[in-house]
């Protein structure tokens, strides 16, 4: 039985993340180079405008904040622990993280209902869209469950999850940090790897092409077939 658990852990926490990240980089780059046309937000706002607001806006603001929190905790775990050393600061961090997670769940739920109920939007919804929506919902719900049942996530993420992720990044995986974690934590981690694995095969690639150059480019864009001598 122990043996089986070890195999399970090695597969999902060592093999899977490497496969997921390798696929992620290989396929997103290949797709960007060979099938650039398929990179799009695939917006359906044109087909349905009202429910769109109540789904997409809370979801995006919620999920972006939550993911940013995970990345920050991964990058600077010590500073998170220092921040959490005062209870009030810990409560503020945990409460705001939870609020944004709930915002994301509500938004995602609204977006899924919209996709189900609006026939025009349904026609532009692929099977992969549903897979991604399902995985995202699972990810958010397990995340909230973990946050509520096993406090305080922001602290033990810094002491357990961050070192595990760093060990992966250092090509020296050490799963001892997480092998004793409860099932819902493990599910949250595994599901995250599946999202990364499916990322390049789904509409999620739009995250990679957020239009940051707009913030510093000139207003008008002119392309020359032959460059003029003094323009």
């Amino acid at each position, binding site marked *: 039985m122990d043996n089986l658990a070890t195999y399970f852990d090695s597969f999902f926490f060592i093999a899977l993340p490497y496969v997921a990240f390798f696929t992620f980089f290989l396929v997103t780059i290949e797709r960007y180079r060979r*099938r*650039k*046309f*398929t*990179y*799009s*937000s*695939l*917006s*359906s*706002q*044109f*087909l*349905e*405008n009202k429910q*769109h*607001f109540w789904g*997409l*806006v809370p*979801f*995006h*603001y919620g999920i972006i904040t939550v993911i940013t929190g995970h990345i920050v905790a991964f990058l600077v775990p010590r500073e998170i622990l220092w921040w959490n050393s005062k209870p009030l600061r810990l409560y503020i961090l945990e409460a705001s993280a939870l609020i944004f997670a709930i915002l994301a769940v509500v938004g995602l739920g609204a977006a899924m209902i919209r996709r189900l109920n609006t*026939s*025009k939007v*349904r*026609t*532009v919804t*692929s099977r*992969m869209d549903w897979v991604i929506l399902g995985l995202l919902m699972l990810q958010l719900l397990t995340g909230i469950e973990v946050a509520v049942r096993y406090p305080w996530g922001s602290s033990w993420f810094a002491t357990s999850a961050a070192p595990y992720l760093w060990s992966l990044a250092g090509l020296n995986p050490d799963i001892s940090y997480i092998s004793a974690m409860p099932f819902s934590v493990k599910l949250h981690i595994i599901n995250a790897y599946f999202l990364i694995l499916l990322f390049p*095969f*789904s*509409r999620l*690639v*739009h995250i990679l*092409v*957020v*239009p940051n*150059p*707009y*913030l510093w*480019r000139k*207003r*008008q*864009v*002119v*392309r*020359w*077939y*032959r*460059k*003029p*001598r*003094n*323009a």
Partner: protein
Amino acid sequence: MNVRSQIAMVFHLDKCIGCHTCSIACKNVWTDRKGAEYMWWNNVETKPGTGFPTAWEDQEKYNGGWELHNGELRLKSTSKTKTVLNIFHHPNMPTMDDYYEPWTYDYQNLFNAPEGPDQPTAVPISTVTGELINIKAGPNWDDDLGGSKIYAANDPNLDGLTAEQQNQLSAVERLVFFYFPRICNHCLNPACVAACPSGAIYKRGEDGIVLIDQNRCRGWRACVPACPYKKVYFNWHTGKSEKCILCYPRLETGQAPACFHSCVGRIRYLGVLLYDASKIEEVGKMPADELIEAQREMILDPHDPEVIAAARANGVHDSVIESAQMSPVYKFVKVWKIALPPHIEYRTLPMLFYVPPMAPVMSERHNGPVRNIGENDNLFHEIDEARVPMKFLANLFGGGHEAKVRYALRKQKAVRWYRRSLTVGDVTKELADRILAEAGSTREEAEAIYRLTSLCTFDERFVIPPMHREEAIEMMEDPLEHKQNVGFGFLTGPKRGL
């Protein structure tokens, strides 16, 4: 001086018969694809009317175009900050309901319907969902409905007209309307380009055609609300925006764009304008009543040796300069000043100009018969007493100001007097000369306007410069391969992203 060349256009509204041949030519060539069915890169509207998409001129609703804010030019619908905040949901995005839901008919039902007491019919089905559809709107839904309380009465250009003038436009048996064909204006200060977060929309340096790079468009859809003319369309299937490409593959091979070529009324003119690109921002910031003049000022005289030298220095080919010298658009816009930009107050500096319509020639406003020819006769109505109120035309073509529209109409009227003095002879030459002088014109000019308006040949209407894009020709190696498939550009199918 930064001289650039621009392919510009003139539509002569007095000649438009509203047949929609242009729209059909365009549709068949470019937009008969999934996701593009509802797009009409070229459409013909009845004015007064609400147009397509519904009430596109209502910028309270769509927030299109530029505005002056503390002396600075800024987009109404977006900004750098707003682009970040609105990236998930654009508040001014029109939806399919503002256009119409495209449909076809279930012809198979005619063959497959089970035996029954009734004749089977080909019921309308949505080309989006495939479901039965109750058709409520279409691209020319208010075609010829001038005077309609539902459509014409909601024309945003009726703003500022007196109740009497509005009645004049819609009174039974006296109502008046005209046609307003529209394509992308290929503006000098395009709002769509400035709004595009991805930098996918660009103006071609050599000819000024505004295009969307389909490989770079990410469907952030900021261009759709930003264009005040609503000439950027969102392809709901591919998740990319598309717009009129001025048939650049045709232009590059010396052919007129499909809508120009097919125009039955021969209302369309196309030619090169040379302009000073360093003045774009300055002109865009002019006070509203000076915009038309300022835009004319930035259009340069292609015969001026200084302009020619500057153009050459900027890499404009000699053949393009020659073409600019023969441009019919230059004559209409700059020499004769009878073609005006639509809604210059949007400050995008459109490069499609309209000769405002005079018809109907006979004034019926005073309820009386047409009086005898004489000094104060009414044969060709006084411009200010026309059945189309000056204010209405001014809202469309004068940026709300009447002076330029009045000038253009008076000159057109003078040309008619002049021609009547020659062909009918019931108008004395002296009277014709006097009216010409009052309109700021001469016999020579009137003759030239008459010729280019009425007797123009194909080659006089379309002076297409050699575009020297020979290497680009491989794009069109097999045009049929694009048919009902990718539309234009590259040969891999426009497969929707996963």
